[in-house]
């Protein structure tokens, strides 16, 4: 295999997936927290909207984003008028596509993690005078961490593999929007099977080791909790 490869796809993919994951982690966590704590009118509809990218074909998501962010889209026009800036055909477009597509994974994991925390623990902390902010950082966040971490990793993997919506929004511009999945598709199209195989193997290895690590980690974590409750009992 040829190792004098152009590594732009790797760097670009890491940049896009990394930024998308940070955005998704923070917003997914905050919204999941808000939605597990509060009840309000239209909550179910909002939740369905958040999870929609999970069941829609990525091209549909991409189409929707194109409508929103395109020259004549609501957001696209504002960006163009105010900042003279366009997201279509830029790596930022790829970030937006990856963010929207991986958001449901983070949201679901975070919501599951927060809803398994015993509310009494938070109440106990409050009765001891802790502020809600402190309760979140010292009780809720550490206890939800295993779930949040698995959401983080799944979102990263999803963002790394994002293709359909990215193609619609960011297109394939070598050096600017050619993330690994793009590079694979267009390498195959152009008959560069070697390049395609290289990236395929690469991304399979990343995916495989992610799942392997995640499984190992969660098993280990459960074992630790189980042991804690067994040992040293009188």
């Amino acid at each position: 295999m040829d190792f004098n490869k152009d590594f732009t796809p790797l760097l670009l993919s890491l940049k896009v997936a990394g930024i998308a994951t940070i955005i998704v982690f923070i917003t997914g966590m905050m919204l999941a927290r808000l939605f597990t704590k509060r009840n309000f009118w239209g909550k179910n509809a909002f939740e369905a909207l958040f999870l929609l990218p999970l069941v829609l074909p990525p091209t549909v998501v991409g189409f929707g984003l194109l409508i929103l962010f395109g020259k004549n889209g609501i957001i696209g026009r504002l960006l163009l008028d105010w900042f003279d800036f366009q997201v279509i055909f830029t790596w930022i477009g790829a970030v937006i596509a990856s963010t929207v597509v991986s958001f449901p994974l983070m949201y679901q994991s975070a919501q599951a993690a927060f809803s398994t925390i015993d509310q009494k623990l938070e109440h106990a902390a409050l009765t001891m005078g802790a502020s809600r902010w402190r309760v979140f950082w010292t009780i809720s966040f550490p206890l939800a961490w295993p779930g949040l971490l698995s959401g983080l990793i799944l979102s990263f993997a999803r963002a790394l593999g994002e293709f359909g919506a990215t193609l619609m929004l960011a297109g394939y511009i070598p050096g600017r929007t050619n993330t690994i999945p793009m590079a694979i598709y267009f390498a195959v199209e152009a008959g560069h099977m070697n390049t395609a195989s290289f990236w395929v193997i690469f991304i399979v290895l990343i995916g495989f080791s992610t799942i392997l690590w995640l499984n190992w980690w969660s098993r280990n974590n459960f074992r630790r909790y189980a042991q804690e409750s067994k040992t040293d009992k009188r």
Partner: protein
Amino acid sequence: MMLHISVEKKLSHFQLKVDFKILDEIVVLFGPSGSGKTTILNMIAGITHPDSGTITLNQLPLYLQKAKPVPIQKRNIGYLFQDYALFPHMTVEKNIIYGIKDKRGAIESPLIQQLLQVMGITHLLQKYPGQISGGEKQRVALARALATEPKLLLLDEAFSALDQKTRSECHDELIRLYQIWNIPVILVTHDLEEAKKLGSRILFMEKGKVIDELINKQHVELYQSNIL
């Protein structure tokens, strides 16, 4: 010290309506499950709010209808939950000093040291809640609730998960603590024996109302003789 609670709240199967006062004594709320006992504790602690009425502690309002209720954090009420609600990811020491503002050297303070000694939990400080027994958890939770020097202590079925012997030991400890600190205690239980052993007054509850009240003369005398 005096707590006065006079509130109404609509629950799923009945209307909760109570009006009673508590002085420096151990008052037991006794009644079947689902009679609204825990809801009363939650309203006093500020976890839930009544639909109407007032709750005052030492003449200061905690809840007044149409006014913004005092938030949980500002009420300074110790609450011991049914399953203790110890923080599983913190050591016993971190659990106990969680509510203390100045953490440095907090564990060495006279109050905490006395609590640790009375409860006999000094040797558990570096353990995690998952590593100690039910009775030990109960003592740690009680020490934690008292560490912030609350003006009132709420105990929700705090002894129900313990075996007979440990339960009896924990009862004695509660009485001892009560004699030392002398703060009002409200204890929720559905164990009549426990109610009689600990309560200076027992309020019998059913479907959200106090249907009977029993003054435990023996206890009143016992407490007074010990305090004086």
